[in-house]
């Protein structure tokens, strides 16, 4: 459970190096992702989240520092990056914009087909990936891709990456711009992927998603890792997060408001159920301090 699958050391990256628009997007980043863990990268826009994700599947090779994924050094010339990219799937932001096939089934089959799968094996793989992404196989496989809703297209994008059967799934803002229902559905899908032991790294702005899914959080700002820890530790530091323009999930904010008013509740509650229990415990124990 605790074998590191991604190890990043002193990674720095300059975008458009050697041009007047050169911009340092990562500065001496260190982090480790353990097998089966869900890591959330949070930080303001332009903090380097996407660039960091793209280093984890070899879209960028390290300019300085080292990235070791599944025991293989990405800076090493002999490392087969295509194999790394198959084992580490990256779902880009707005994956619905990369759809090019006419039918959903073909779209999802693109990855595994290129990898050499065919016939029954391919069909089984596509069915598996579509069901995992929340698309009913028999209902959707022959739907034209242009006739899908925004949320369905997003799921097709997700299924297209899952179909590669990656060992690690990287997600760049997986839930941005979705309606509440699709958002919820997609989160459930990701929870079930986590339940199956999938290692995930996601970059997101949605703190409620982070609270529900992530085991650990890394906060980025200006390309630097500012701090990190378990979700509970990070969300307990509301002030520090605020200094980087980040908020805490609603449930955490509630706990901290209550504490300010003198209620004896924990610093962070990561789910509505947890918050409910904490409030109930505080009320029944009537452990209110006499501050008022």
């Amino acid at each position, binding site marked *: 459970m605790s074998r590191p699958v991604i190890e990043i050391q002193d990674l720095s990256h300059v975008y458009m190096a050697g041009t007047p628009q050169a911009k340092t997007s990562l500065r001496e980043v260190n982090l480790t992702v353990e097998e089966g863990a869900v890591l959330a990268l949070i930080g303001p826009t332009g903090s380097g989240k996407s660039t960091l994700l793209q280093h984890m599947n070899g*879209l960028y090779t390290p300019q300085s520092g080292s990235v070791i994924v599944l025991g293989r050094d990405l800076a090493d010339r002999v490392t087969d990056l295509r194999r790394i990219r*198959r084992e580490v799937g*990256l779902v880009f932001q707005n994956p619905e914009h990369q759809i090019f096939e006419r039918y959903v089934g073909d779209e999802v089959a693109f*990855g595994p087909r290129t990898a050499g799968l065919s016939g029954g094996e391919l069909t089984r793989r596509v069915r598996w990936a579509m069901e995992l992404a929340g698309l009913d196989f028999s209902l959707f496989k022959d739907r034209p891709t242009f006739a899908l809703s925004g949320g369905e297209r997003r799921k097709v994008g997700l299924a297209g990456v899952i179909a590669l059967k990656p060992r690690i799934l990287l997600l760049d803002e997986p839930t941005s711009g979705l309606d509440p229902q699709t958002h919820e559905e997609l989160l459930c899908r990701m929870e079930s992927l986590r339940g199956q032991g999938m290692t995930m790294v996601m970059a997101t702005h949605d703190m409620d998603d982070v609270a529900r899914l992530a085991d650990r959080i890394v906060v980025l700002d200006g390309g630097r890792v500012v701090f990190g820890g378990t979700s509970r530790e990070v969300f307990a530091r509301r002030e520090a997060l605020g200094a980087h323009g980040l908020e805490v999930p609603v449930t955490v904010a509630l706990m901290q408001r209550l504490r300010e008013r003198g209620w004896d509740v924990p610093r962070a509650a990561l789910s509505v159920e947890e918050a409910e229990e904490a409030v109930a415990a505080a009320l029944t124990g009537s452990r209110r301090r006499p501050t008022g």
Partner: protein
Amino acid sequence: MRNTEFLRNVTIGQYLPTDSPVHRLHPTTKMLMGGFCVVAAIISGSLGGFVIMVLAVTAALRLARIPLLYAYRGLRPAVPIIVLVAALQILFASQSDGGAVLWSGWIITITAGDFLVAATMAVRLVVLILIISFFTFCTSAKELTHGTEQLLRPLGRIGFPAHELALVLTIALRFLPLLAMEAERLVKAQVSRGADFGKRRMGLFKRVYRMFPLLVPLFLASLRRGEHLVLAMEARCYTGGKGRTRLVRFRFGPADGAAITAVVLLVAAVLAAHFLRLDSVFLPRLEGF
């Protein structure tokens, strides 16, 4: 596919706001300068003239505070074409007054003059690319529209759609870097889901087929962007150029006069080098003369 950063090598069409004296010139001045130089480079066939132009553009780049290495990097994608053109020129196009024959056989005759003409062609392409990139480095899209419109305004009286043409030009130029960015993103996204854009050894048909995952979404993205642009323009009550006033007005200043004079002198020098055939000094013993 190890390097997915496309944009690093696409320097033509990039605007680099360094706020130099060159950037502050009137847009019409900049367009006239660019236009004169391009025309001179096309008319002239003089190696010496082109060398002067390369030096002049280099000096202008310094004046505009644009890193020289960055400007020259724009030449990199054109290198294969330049080499090919030069090679064809040397091998097949024979100069009648080509000077000493160096080698002859089959349908190929190589003369000293061939090398001169090939070098001239190559430097001419370099000059053209440099001029155009220099122009885009220090002219923003807004200035370009303004300049085009002003230059074409006289034609507007006879019903020529000057404003519309200027707009089309601006949008086309502005969309180029966006398209490159989009393509970069798409290549990354498709590679992340197992795409393979092929190796050089593959057949043409197969390679084109493999580009589908890039081309289809890129096309769709362009259409979508175009539609958004239309909506955005209509939402701002855009109705065309008629009766439109400007927030920023440009004025001609002494710098514009100086710049135009410099360019006219440069063009005169280049054309003189061409028509006076000053290049003949490069040829060792011309037989025709």
